[in-house]
């Protein structure tokens, strides 16, 4: 049986690709016919909202009224997934707030699913964030994301050091976002549409866009790689109640298999 899920995408550093990962997640859920809504905490201008305006609200996650707007409606909004793209520096305060309002206790009871996508930066400081964040997440799905989209090199990571942090959190799962050609990345940014819409060669209003076939091919190939990793970590399983999670088959649809309507939605 499906249960609503809250997914936090964050990092305490800026510029590590939180919004990019959020966008891939929204495309992924759309491809799996899982309804999602999103909250963009880049208040007031919003970043995620540019790409997914129909399902995204810009909120100030530090304000109580906006916290109510997000968390009081998780079970009643009709969306199976509530995704929150957390602004740089707000991940730890948001987790503290969730603990204080009793949200994390709710997830322990299994009524709600809770997952955190922690986008790692290239510096060693990012590893300290893991320790800081993980203490809130004993009952949550914790995904550590290595984002290579902009050819990030995790240059000052010693494999042994990384593993020592990684192993402290037995339920943490590593997710890899591969590199995407800079030009393809830039064109999708400029077009301000979801990746799947870019691949389908549509504008935000659903009209034929005339994007480069080559760039669309690169984006499709890249997004299929991202989706394959989400399938590998059985992301959709978070929606299933703990007792039924082991029984259901996994979905493996690729971007190329999406119907045009779905792909451009």
């Amino acid at each position: 049986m499906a249960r609503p899920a809250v997914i936090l995408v964050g990092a305490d550093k800026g510029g590590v690709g939180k919004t990019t990962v959020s966008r891939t997640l929204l495309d992924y859920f759309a491809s799996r016919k899982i309804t999602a809504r999103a909250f963009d905490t880049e208040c007031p201008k919003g970043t995620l909202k540019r790409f997914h305006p129909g399902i995204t609200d810009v909120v100030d996650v530090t304000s109580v009224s906006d916290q109510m707007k997000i968390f009081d409606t998780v079970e009643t909004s009709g969306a199976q997934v509530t995704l929150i793209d957390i602004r740089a520096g707000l991940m730890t305060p948001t987790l503290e707030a969730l603990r204080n309002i009793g949200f994390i206790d709710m997830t322990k009871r299994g009524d709600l699913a809770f997952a955190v996508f922690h986008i790692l930066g290239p510096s060693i400081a990012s590893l300290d964030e893991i320790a800081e964040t993980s203490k809130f997440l004993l009952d949550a799905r914790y995904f550590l994301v290595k984002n290579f989209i902009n050819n990030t090199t995790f240059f000052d990571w010693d494999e042994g050091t990384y593993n020592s942090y990684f192993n402290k959190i037995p339920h943490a799962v590593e997710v890899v976002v591969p590199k995407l050609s800079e030009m393809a990345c830039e064109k999708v940014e400029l077009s301000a549409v979801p990746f799947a819409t870019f691949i389908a060669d549509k504008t935000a209003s659903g009209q034929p866009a005339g994007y480069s076939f080559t760039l669309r091919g690169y984006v499709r190939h890249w997004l299929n790689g991202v989706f394959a990793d989400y399938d590998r970590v059985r992301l959709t399983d978070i929606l299933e109640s703990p007792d039924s999670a082991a029984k259901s088959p996994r979905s493996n649809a690729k971007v190329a298999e999406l119907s045009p309507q779905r792909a451009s939605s």
Partner: protein
Amino acid sequence: MTAFAIDRRDVPAAPSPEPGRSVPAPLYIVCSPNRQVGKTMLARLLAEHYVADGRPVAAFDLSDETPGLADFLTRHVTIPGIQDTRGQVRFFDGLIETANIPKIIDLSHREFANFFTIVDKIGLFEEAQRRAIEPLILFLIDPSPVAAKAYGLLRRRFAGISLLPVRNLTVAKGLPYCASFPHASRLVVSLEIAMLGPAARAFVEREKFSLLNLAKQASPYSDMSARTRAELDAWFRRARFQFRELELSLIREQILTALHSDLCA
């Protein structure tokens, strides 16, 4: 001196499609992972075959060696760059934008892996077929294990795309190719480049040498003997017969496919 004009009676006329149906324009990819196997020679023969008919053709020199295709057919050849994304966009988008012109790519052995990796990533062949462009991989066979391995990889990776072994008798005479280079196309055509004697070969390898010009007697090759001219003329005609067979085979396949769809409808 004997005149050796190309007589239309010697070579079958250019194939015409069934009224109301358009012939898929071929996209020839002349390739091998090895050098000195006759790739540029085959690309030249193909290009001159179209020019001899007065039909449009676009040729692309990805040979990165001199003399390349562009050194022989300056008017019809473009030298694209596919090292960066910008060049790839220009080249690959251009390939599929003009659907009705036959195109020939002379692919360097050095670009072999990179080219097919990009083609695979961006889904060039699938998109080409959607736009009535028929990709035909013309693979120059030779006795090296590298060639057999590369052929096998292409065959597996691009199943459904015509992969035709081409035997250049200068390098692959007597090479049994059924086992290492099995025919992988619905097109029932066998391509072979005949051997040339040393004198004729020396002319063919001269920069800017054109079989077409020779046939039209517009060539300044006053040092060419009548015997060499006869040899070259017969050689070109033989190659053109095979290209005609290939084009006819394409049309036949298209008709059969259309009939099959009509019957199934």
